[in-house]
């Protein structure tokens, strides 16, 4: 047998080793890299604001933002703002997502509902929901109702679109299999269509829950004394950059948290994917 040498040249005359040209195109998650990027950005901001080549009007000192955040926590105001916001987010997103999933499944299953509702959803989707807030205040009241409605409507459309796309992508041979074994219509939907659509539904939820957080701030523009959105908007109008950034950081963390939670659910529910 011929042995292969590691160098570029071989003992065999007039021959060379075939160079490697495969690999790549397969990104892997490297957790620490994300932290390093955050740390670098924050240190540059800290350095710039301290050294003075970033003016105090452009960006607050990250250490000051942290200080503000600390004060917010110590004074107990943090939870006074966080609690109503989280409730609004949870209630609104739950209503919107469950309505979106139900309607999406119906669109995926029935010709009439599909033909009737797909244009309606296409018409609702591009409307900036924030523009409808005054209307919602009249319809659902200045209290929590209008806030729930705004967040629910904003999460409904992307969830419905993702869900019916996911139902369309369920392997038809599995449905034929269910029919060939005499499974009832309801069993086929519950045991084949729904789990088959789950990957698409969850990736749709990633998008729609991020939209829900955006709309949370919008919802707290009118008639909210407490809430992260109200806090951020108030700081913005007073040009209090430290408080503005402290609020923004909370919203970002909320987004990361929601995304992580969906990741956990995906690992739990979608372990069957190859």
């Amino acid at each position, binding site marked *: 047998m011929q042995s292969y040498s590691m160098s570029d040249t071989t003992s065999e005359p007039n021959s060379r080793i075939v160079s490697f040209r495969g690999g790549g195109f397969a990104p892997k998650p490297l957790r620490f890299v994300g932290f390093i990027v955050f740390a670098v950005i924050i240190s540059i901001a800290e350095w710039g604001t301290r050294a003075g080549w970033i003016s105090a009007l452009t960006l607050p000192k990250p250490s000051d933002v942290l200080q503000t955040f600390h004060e917010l926590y110590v004074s107990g105001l943090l939870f006074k703002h966080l609690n109503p916001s989280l409730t609004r987010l949870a209630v609104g997103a739950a209503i919107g997502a469950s309505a979106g999933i139900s309607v999406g499944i119906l669109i995926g299953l029935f010709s009439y509902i599909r033909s009737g509702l797909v244009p309606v959803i296409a018409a609702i989707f591009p409307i900036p929901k924030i523009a409808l807030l005054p209307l919602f205040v009249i319809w659902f009241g200045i209290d929590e109702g209008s806030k729930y409605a705004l967040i629910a409507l904003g999460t409904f459309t992307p969830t419905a679109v993702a869900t019916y796309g996911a139902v369309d992508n369920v392997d038809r*041979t*599995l449905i*034929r*299999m*269910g*029919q*060939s*074994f*005499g*499974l*009832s219509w309801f*069993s086929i939907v519950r*045991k*084949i269509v729904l*789990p088959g659509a789950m990957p698409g539904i969850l990736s749709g939820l990633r998008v729609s829950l991020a939209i829900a957080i955006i709309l949370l701030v919008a919802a707290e523009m009118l008639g909210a004394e407490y809430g992260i959105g109200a806090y951020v908007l108030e700081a913005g109008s007073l040009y209090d950059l430290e408080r503005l950034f402290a609020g923004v950081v909370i919203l970002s963390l909320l987004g990361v948290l929601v995304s992580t939670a969906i990741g956990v659910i995906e690992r739990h529910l*979608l*372990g*069957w*994917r*190859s």
Partner: protein
Amino acid sequence: MDIRLENISHSYDGFEVMRDITLDIPDGRIVCIVGPSGCGKSTLLRIIGGLERPSQGRVLQVGEPPEDCLNPLTYIFQDFALLPWRTAAGNVSLVLEDHGIRGAEARRIIDDVLERTKLLDFAKALPKQLSGGMKQRVAIARALAVNPAVMLMDEPLSALDSQTRELLMDDLISLWERQPFTAVYVTHNLAEAVRLGHLIVVLSRRPGEIREMVQIDKPLGDRQFSDSELEEYQKYLWQLMRDEARAADAELLHV
């Protein structure tokens, strides 16, 4: 229970795929349907099992299915059609749940069919962990669980490599010898047809008509790999089909 096909003709949007097929599938026999691609053999199988309506003609069940039969006409698909989110045992359980069979009774049936298909050690494995041959064994176990009167097999071994195919053919033969089942077995592979078929139905190219029926009397258990008698049959079948297959291959597809 026998199956009788009476004058089945079928066309898709005015495009004739099969014409006047009359065929008896006797109880306890394996009937293989072979033919060039596009002759409508898979469509015929879907018609037999009620997944598609023929344009003309009808399919009759003659006699009663066995008493504990949950699903008289049961398919085995080419691409296995296993739910990827259920384990091997869960996939079998799926077809029992709708008949209200749960708990100990379900476990007894699942263990029995997994044992018959040599899968007991893989009961908790997900489809993604199983090889192609194993997946098709799970599908066979699932079909056995409903105790079918007739198994409708649509190219069940075509997605497998040739060695796995040999192994599974042996398994099917031993399953049949242990408890003879009725089957309609659609394939384009003549070696499978002569190994497993008591009766081989040769269809012509589109529109598919019955060109010839070949009966092989040699018992399934005596049929060996590269058996000279079977090779004679296979050669004869290929002669019947060759020109049709060539013409079918040269046809344009209508999609």
